[in-house]
């Protein structure tokens, strides 16, 4: 605690004015200690220092430094004994490389397509409409046999949400392989697939974000509903072995759900029919 206590505002300002000299190793030991102590003490100063440092590294890589700064920079960041400085420089340099660019592109989560959002909304609207219809139906159930028939239809619809309401046009989105039925995630609207027999494996690729968990939900024509466990993507793909798939009557409505959140929502919808 024997360090001199200086005026905070003056000390902050002094430090900021000397960031560049410090980063280029042009301050003496006393001033270096004073500046780094200010960075350690005053909130936010380390962010300012890192901004200046990042800009300095970019300037070196873009050859924007003035002549005598190149040697100083290389002494501090390239041919230096300070591993931390070498790491800063090399990581920032790598961030500009094409290889990292490719890596980032491959890892970027695919945003929900514009048509998938209406699908999710339409599912929500459909559920609300069905619940309302159910309440109204309940009032008249005992009085109208004709309505009984309609309610029975509605009940089926409640078990199988989605495909009945304002379904966007279907598009081919599946291909059968020995590994299973591959469903493309890159669809807009409802995807369709034609199979010769109920598939034993469902494969969905590429997932929007490989760090998330997903699940399949299958509604078969026979009224069965099957939900997979949470699936962890491998190589941007989720795979589900459908239990007793042969007993599930085609066609199927298959939904891919975002399973990591409490309020799950459909990311994609496919209709799988027999050829």
């Amino acid at each position, binding site marked *: *605690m*024997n*360090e001199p*206590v200086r005026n*905070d505002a003056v000390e902050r300002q002094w430090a900021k004015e000397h960031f560049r000299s410090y980063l280029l190793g042009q301050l003496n*030991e006393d001033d*270096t*200690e004073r500046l*780094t*102590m200010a*960075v*350690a*003490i*005053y*909130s936010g*100063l*380390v*962010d300012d*220092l*890192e901004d200046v440092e990042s800009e300095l590294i970019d300037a070196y890589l873009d050859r924007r430094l003035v002549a005598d700064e190149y040697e100083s920079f290389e*002494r501090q960041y390239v*041919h*230096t*004994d*300070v*591993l*931390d400085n*070498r*790491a*800063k420089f*090399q*990581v920032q*340099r*790598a*961030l500009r*490389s094409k*290889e*990292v660019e490719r*890596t*980032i592109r*491959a*890892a*970027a989560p695919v945003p929900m397509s514009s048509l998938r959002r209406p699908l999710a909304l339409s599912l929500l609207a459909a559920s609300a409409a069905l619940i309302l219809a159910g309440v109204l139906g309940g009032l008249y159930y005992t009085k109208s046999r004709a309505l009984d028939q309609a309610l029975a239809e509605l009940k089926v619809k409640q078990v199988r949400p989605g495909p009945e309401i304002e379904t966007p046009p279907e598009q081919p989105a599946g291909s059968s392989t020995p590994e299973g039925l591959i469903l493309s995630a890159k669809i807009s609207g409802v995807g369709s697939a034609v199979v010769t027999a109920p598939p034993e494996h469902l494969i969905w690729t590429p997932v929007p974000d*490989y*760090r998330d968990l997903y699940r399949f939900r299958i509604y078969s024509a026979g009224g069965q509903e099957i939900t997979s466990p949470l699936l962890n993507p491998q190589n941007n793909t989720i795979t589900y072995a459908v239990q007793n798939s042969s007993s599930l009557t085609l066609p199927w409505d298959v939904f891919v759900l975002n399973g990591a959140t409490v309020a799950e929502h459909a990311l994609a919808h496919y209709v799988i029919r027999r050829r």
Partner: protein
Amino acid sequence: MGIELIPVVYWVSQDSEVGYTETLLELVRTLRPFATSILRRYAPPERSGLCPEALIYGGLMELRHKILDQYLPVVEPNRVRSVTCVWPWWDNTGIKVLASGYVETLRPLPAASGTTSSLEGRGWTYKFYRNDDIEERRRWVCHLIKEQARADERSLGDEVPLDENVAQAGGPIMKRGEFGSKSDVSDLVSITDPADWRDARAKGDSKTRKRCQRATERLRSAYKILELSLTQSFAKAYLHRLVEAEGRERQSILNEFFKRYMKNTADDEK
């Protein structure tokens, strides 16, 4: 060990609204430039074998000793020593100090921080620090870090041989040659999580910035592992684990590498 540092981390940053790990990482980030400069000036790594993170953890451990143990500041004649308040209730109980082997109580405490006062009855002076704001508390950590580096260097004496595995301060040594060729970037990419590269480029609000900082720290750790693995067996072990791991698991390993000195310090104490 993480549990043992919790009191001191929270004591230093009492106003923090974030969790323990985030607070610790932030503390290390802000203290690292200071620890680096202190190390180069007072205890060069090739002699002391220390690195900035180890010095920071050492300073935090010393602070833990002072705030949790029966720490008695010393007051002496002919020298202005520092007396620091640790807990707010010491305003009522006073602070016990050690004066020539006797325990005396300072009460009431001086109202202002950074003021020089006299020990009643003896006339010995001391400088009083209240530590009631984060800047004063961080200043104390810096002081302890500096004291630790100087003590470490003094304890080594003149006979300690240089560690040839550690680059000498002031000398341009590159053990692995120039980095930056395509294969080197590939090596770095192959042991990191692609999401970290994406996050390291992200710009935006404070939350995004924090995510960017953490991702960048991990990428730098990966680079350090690549370099250190040429000479240090512990880094080879980390490298092996990173090669075997995938995605987010790599983030965990790199976070662990960043905090490894906490564990070392704990092991030393056993």
